[in-house]
C-alpha cells in the first residue's frame, strides 16, 4: 500500500455493506429464478424451486438484519440532504452526465449516493415488510397481501435498477471507488474528486487517517461520528 492512502471506511461499515450486497444479490437471483419461468433453471444448483424459495426467504432475514445496521450506520450521512450544496450538486448531476467545471462540494456522500441509500433503505424496508407478509400471507387480509405482492415487485424494479447503477459507479464508472469497500483505503485524488468536502472537514478536524502518518490525536470517525 502506498503511503498517503486515506482510510475512508472501517471494517464494520464494509461488513455491513457486503452483507447487504451479497444478500441482495442472492435475493435478486433467487427472486428472478422464481419470477420468470424461463429462469427457473436457476434453482437447479440448489435442488429445486422449493429450496430456492427457502434460500430466498432466509436470505431475506439476513438482508433485513444487514439493512437494519446499514440504516443505523448511514442514515445521518447518507439519509439527510444538506442544503444548498446538495441541491447545487443535483443541478449539475454531480458532473456525471455532462462536463462541468466544478462540481459543488458535498459531504461524505453525494446526493446521488444519498438517493441510492434512500432507495435501498425505503424500498429495502418495503421489500422486508412485503416479503415477510408474503411469507406468512394467511395471517393477513387478502387485499393487504395482494398489495404486498405489488409492493414487492415494485421494490424489485427499483432496487434491481439501482443495483446496476451502483455496480457501475462503484467500479468502472468511477475508478478508485471500489477500494473504499474492499480495503477501505482510498487515494486522496479520488477523495478530492468524489468527496472533497468530507476530506476537507475531516482533515480540518484532524481526524483523517492517512497511511504512514501518525494517527490523529482524537479517536473516532466513520460511522461512530
Amino acid at each position, binding site marked *: 500500500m*502506498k*503511503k*498517503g*492512502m486515506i482510510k475512508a471506511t472501517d471494517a464494520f461499515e464494509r461488513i455491513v455493506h457486503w452483507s447487504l450486497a451479497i444478500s441482495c444479490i442472492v435475493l435478486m437471483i433467487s427472486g428472478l429464478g*422464481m*419470477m*420468470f*419461468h424461463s429462469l*427457473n433453471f436457476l434453482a437447479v444448483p440448489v435442488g*429445486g*424451486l*422449493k429450496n*430456492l*424459495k427457502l434460500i430466498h426467504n432466509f436470505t431475506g432475514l439476513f438482508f433485513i438484519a444487514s439493512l437494519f445496521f446499514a440504516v443505523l450506520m448511514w442514515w445521518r450521512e447518507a439519509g439527510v440532504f444538506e442544503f444548498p450544496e446538495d441541491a447545487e450538486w443535483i443541478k449539475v448531476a454531480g*458532473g*456525471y*452526465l*455532462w462536463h462541468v467545471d466544478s462540481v459543488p462540494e458535498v459531504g461524505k456522500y453525494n446526493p446521488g449516493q444519498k438517493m441510492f441509500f434512500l432507495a435501498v433503505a425505503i424500498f429495502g424496508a418495503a421489500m422486508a415488510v412485503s416479503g415477510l407478509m*408474503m411469507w406468512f*400471507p*394467511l395471517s393477513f387480509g*387478502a387485499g393487504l*397481501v*395482494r*398489495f404486498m*405482492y*405489488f409492493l*414487492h*415487485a*415494485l421494490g*424489485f*424494479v*427499483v432496487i*434491481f*435498477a*439501482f*443495483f*446496476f*447503477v451502483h455496480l*457501475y*459507479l462503484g467500479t*468502472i*464508472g*468511477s*475508478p*478508485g471507488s471500489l477500494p473504499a469497500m474492499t480495503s477501505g483505503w482510498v*487515494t*486522496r*485524488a*479520488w*477523495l*478530492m*474528486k*468524489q468527496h472533497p468536502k468530507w476530506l476537507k472537514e475531516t482533515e480540518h478536524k484532524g481526524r483523517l487517517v492517512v497511511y504512514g502518518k501518525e494517527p490523529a490525536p482524537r479517536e473516532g470517525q466513520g460511522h461512530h461520528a
Partner: protein
Amino acid sequence: MKGTDFVKLIDTTRCTACRGCQVACKQWNEMPGLRTRNRGSYQNPPDLEWNTWTLVRFQEHENGDGVLQWLFRKDGCMHCTDAGCVKVCPSGALFYTEFGTVGIDRTKCIGCKECLFACPFEVPKYDRATDKVFKCDLCYTRLREGLLPACVKSCPTGALTFGAVDTMLKTAYARVEDLKQDGHPDANVYGDKFVGGTHVLYVLGEKPEIYDSLPQKPAVPLTVIAWKDFLKPLSLLAAGGVILGSFLHYIIHGPKSPDENGDRDAT
C-alpha cells in the same frame, strides 16, 4: 375460451344439495374427511379447504315477497381462461390443460401461496403439513381418460353437466330462458363474461349478488396485473436500461476518474 375447450355447467336450480359431488371429489382425489363441528349450518366444512376442493354452500334467503328460498351453490375452482393463479405461479405447478381448465401439478408446487391471493374466487387452499396448495383440477386425470369429472358423474339430478364449451353455453342460456318463463325472472348465466370466461359456468336462479361468497365482478386483482404484466417486464427493462445507460455513459462521457492533481498529497 377456445372452441376446443370443455366446460362444467352447474345448474343451481337443479341442485338438491345432496353433496354427492363433495364426497365423490374426495373419493377420486383421495382427500380425507376431517373432524368438523356443527356451527349451526348444513354447510360443512365451513369453507373450501385443502382437503375439500368442492363444497356445497347453503344459504337461507327470503326474497322481497317473504318467500323463503334455500339456495345451494356448489363452490370450487372456476377454471378461468385468464387465471390469476396460473399468472402468479412461480413454478409452473398451475397450468392450463388442453381442455382449457387449470390443472395443478403438486410435485412442482413450492408452497409460496401466491395463487391463494391471485385467485378472484379465493379457491386455492394451502396445507401446512405438506407445504402444498390444493384445488380442483376438474379431474384432469379422468378427462384425459375420456371420463367425466367425478362430481359430474355423481350428480343424480343433472345439476352438473360437462361438455364442449359451445354446447354448454347454449344449454345454459336455454335453461335460463326456461327459468325466466317459469317464475325466475332473475335467472342468469354466470361465468362467461369475465376472466376470459370460466370453464365452470353457473345457471343461477337469482342475481349473483344474492349468493354468499360469489364475487359479482370477479377479475384478476389489479395488483397482480400490475405486478405480472407491468412491473415484471419493467424490472428487466429498467435494469437493462441502466446497464445500457452505464455502457453509453462509459463510452460517451467516460468514467468519473479522479483529477490528476487531486492526488497531490499522495507522496
